[in-house]
């Protein structure tokens, strides 16, 4: 009886250790993490990216469906190749970066989870906040768990990596960004891509 209890306790403890959720930090000193955006325009597509990524995601390799977290993009980190376009984009008429310093997505629910080895694909529903307007959206996400690979990215550090990739679209009008205006010059549809890796040091 005593042996059985000991065995049960050992199994429970081992299971708890293996199933422990980890917190991954997406601040990237290397500047690789980026969010891309693209809008159609008459002369050429407006193509830019943002590197001011931060936020945390809690991920359990034994239970990916329980993943939750929040990713933040600093509005002022959005870059465009043309300086005038960038100035207009960050101005109070468009993104109003001075007033709304962050663009964020906070997850609420995960559905359609499919797991293949260390890769999880799912549809994540959450709150997307842009220019102070929050809307619930559902986006497809691909999570890749890379156990003990942190040292390959950051020398002398041990830990795990979690790579998140996602592509989705939003309408700028839904977020009070010049709704219904200049749609022949700047598309209402914005294509967004997320390519980020978070670290969980041990």
């Amino acid at each position, binding site marked *: 009886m005593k042996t059985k209890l000991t065995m049960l306790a050992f199994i429970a403890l081992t299971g708890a250790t293996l199933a422990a959720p980890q917190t991954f930090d997406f601040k990237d000193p*290397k*500047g*690789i*993490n*980026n969010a*891309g955006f693209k809008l159609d325009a008459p*002369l*050429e597509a407006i*193509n830019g*990216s943002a*590197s001011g990524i931060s936020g945390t995601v809690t991920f359990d390799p034994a239970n990916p469906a329980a993943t939750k977290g929040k990713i933040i993009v600093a509005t002022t980190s959005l*870059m*465009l*190749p*043309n*300086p*005038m*376009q960038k100035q207009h984009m960050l101005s109070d008429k468009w993104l109003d970066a001075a007033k709304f310093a962050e663009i964020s997505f906070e997850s609420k629910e995960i559905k359609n989870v499919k797991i293949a080895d260390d890769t999880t694909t799912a549809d994540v529903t959450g709150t997307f906040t842009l220019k102070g307007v929050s809307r619930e959206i559902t986006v497809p996400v691909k999570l*890749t768990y*890379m156990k003990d*690979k942190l040292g*390959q*990215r950051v020398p002398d550090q041990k830990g795990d*990596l979690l*790579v998140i990739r996602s592509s989705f679209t939003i309408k700028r009008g839904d977020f009070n960004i010049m709704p219904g205006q200049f749609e022949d010059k700047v598309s209402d549809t914005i294509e967004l891509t997320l*390519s*980020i*890796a978070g670290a969980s040091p041990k």
Partner: protein
Amino acid sequence: MKRTLRIVAGVLIVGAIAFWAAAGANRGWTKTHIPKKIMDEATGLEGIQWQGGFVPGVDFLGAAFLGAGVLAGLSFFVPAKPK
């Protein structure tokens, strides 16, 4: 003076077109930052670094044509040299 203004206008147009063509004949807007892709070997992610640079676009040509037009236009207001 009249002739000088028109020659300068002509040189401006020709020079702008030549510079624009040599820089890649960019038919979009002028770029002062160029995106450079960098690969993270550990994760396979492709990051983007923005580097300073100058790629003239159609707005550059437009500004050159406008400047040339102003110079050429001014030349009509310069009195001709008496013979």
